[in-house]
């Protein structure tokens, strides 16, 4: 039985990875299971300099979901390269580093810095709704997206995944823009911009006022967008958005995703990601599926 998939020439033993921002650099979850059980670990976004993130409260629960406005707090690329990459290298899994920045130059500098590092893929975060500059500003304008993709590609030694925002009118326009800019793959969806009001305190639930909605609540939106994007471009699509188990992950694979990421579900159950990988294998066994590619994009 073949569960491995290839993204931009990088072979993942199974199609399950972690979604950026929900998994740190894996250290906190390695106390529960071996990260070698995962196809890849996607790290929390890292920038050129350390970022302090947003004021608290940074999260709020909503029905079947949560809002977050962490604000891309990160220790900066220097400490990340010294500490987090060597940690992840201990495991038999692929390393995907998520990169964030405020300007095109910021992104390119981090990407160049990673050229010498033993990482497998880069994921470029142009879809964070919680920071004022950079982030989503690049992810909502197709020309800006195509341009930053092109610039990042020039600076990058590893294949580049562009992570897209769902906060757009037509996801296929953005998917095509990333492809035209030279992206090796795209990943989607990032969170949906939302808001929650505390009616007793008459204030916003988050200090940032708005936050990104994630969790099971957004899954149908994500499956739809992954399906649309997969049919719009030739490059591989990595699907995410509300995946909590193998059944959810299989929907994305059948919609056309070549791999999937488990995000908020890591908080619902620390074992969610390896359980999803094991569940896909079990499903394939039960259904007599020899190769996972037989179900990718099958609908």
């Amino acid at each position: 039985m073949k569960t491995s998939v290839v993204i931009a020439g990088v072979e993942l033993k199974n199609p399950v990875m972690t979604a950026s921002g929900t998994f740190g650099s894996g250290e906190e979850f390695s106390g529960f299971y071996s990260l070698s059980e995962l196809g890849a670990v996607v790290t929390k976004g890292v920038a050129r300099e350390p970022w302090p993130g947003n004021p608290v409260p940074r999260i709020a629960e909503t029905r079947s979901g949560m809002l977050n406005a962490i604000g891309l707090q990160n220790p900066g690329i220097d400490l990340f390269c010294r500490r987090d990459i060597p940690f992840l290298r201990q495991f038999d899994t692929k390393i995907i580093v998520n990169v964030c920045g405020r300007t095109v130059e910021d992104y390119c500098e981090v990407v160049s810095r990673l050229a010498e590092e033993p990482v497998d893929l880069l994921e470029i975060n142009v879809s964070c709704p919680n920071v004022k500059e950079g982030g989503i500003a690049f992810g909502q304008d197709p020309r800006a997206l195509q341009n930053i993709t092109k610039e990042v590609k020039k600076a990058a030694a590893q294949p580049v995944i562009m992570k897209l925002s769902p906060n757009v009118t037509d996801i296929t326009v953005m998917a095509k823009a990333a492809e035209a800019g030279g992206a090796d793959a795209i990943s989607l969806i990032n969170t949906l911009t939302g808001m929650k009001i505390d009616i007793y305190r008459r204030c916003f639930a988050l200090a940032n006022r708005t936050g990104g909605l994630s969790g099971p609540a957004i899954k149908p939106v994500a499956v739809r967008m992954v399906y649309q994007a997969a049919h719009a471009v030739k490059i591989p699509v990595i699907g995410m958005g509300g995946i909590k188990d193998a059944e959810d992950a299989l929907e994305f694979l059948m919609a056309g995703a070549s791999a999937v990421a488990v995000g908020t579900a890591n908080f619902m159950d620390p074992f969610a990601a390896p359980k999803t990988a094991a569940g896909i294998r079990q499903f394939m066994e039960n259904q007599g599926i020899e190769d996972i590619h037989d179900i990718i994009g099958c609908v």
Partner: protein
Amino acid sequence: MKYVEDSRVIRQEQLSDGIFSLLLQTEKIAAEAAPGQFVLLWCSDGSRILPRPISICSASPADGTLRLVYRVTGKETGTEEFSRLQEGDSLRIEGPLGNGFDMDLPEEEHLLIVGGGIGIPPMLWVAEAAGCRKTVVLGYRSTPFMEEDFKERTEENDLWIATEDGTCGTRGNVLDVIRGQGISADRIYACGPKPMLHFLAAWAEENGIPCFVSMEERMACGIGACLACVCGTKETDSHTNVRNRRVCKEGPVFRSTEVEI
């Protein structure tokens, strides 16, 4: 080590208006827990996706039981769901998490234990585990709870109560008691609402008393991955590389002078 278990409810009782005491049978969590640590509890209602962080009130490593005292935060909340649990029910739990209070104190040290509101329960185990001289000051809005539990673990005249409405003990807050009674100590351990911790920490600093506080913040993962529950620090933290620390991982107990309260 931290574990995820399906614990079993031994019993649950209501202590006061909205305050519940839950006794759980665990496999490993109770055996490894320490005073000041916390656990995560999952709701059975899947639409409440995040686990609820609850401080450990006390644990018995010998029989594997864990006592949690918590407040129901409102209608249709996770804590309301927990309050309906009965003997024999199952409850998914993760822990023990975070760093608690240092209980390795010299016998001659005088420890001042301060609890406010729903920050009172974790201080019970601190009072029990402290082998040194201790004074306990508890602050409530109104009618006290767990008063008897604390009486059993303190010497006579070493337990003080403050209530905001004057129902019991001193009318006012914990600092009114501390100042009014001229209480001093070599060290302070405290858990409670932020304003209480703020003024207590200021008082401790004025008087040159080392003060350790248990902080609270909205959290998602409870293990240090999501960076939701940070608190500001005076110095750059070695893990985050910025001036904040994770309440769930480096905390919840911090030295009062290193964090912004």
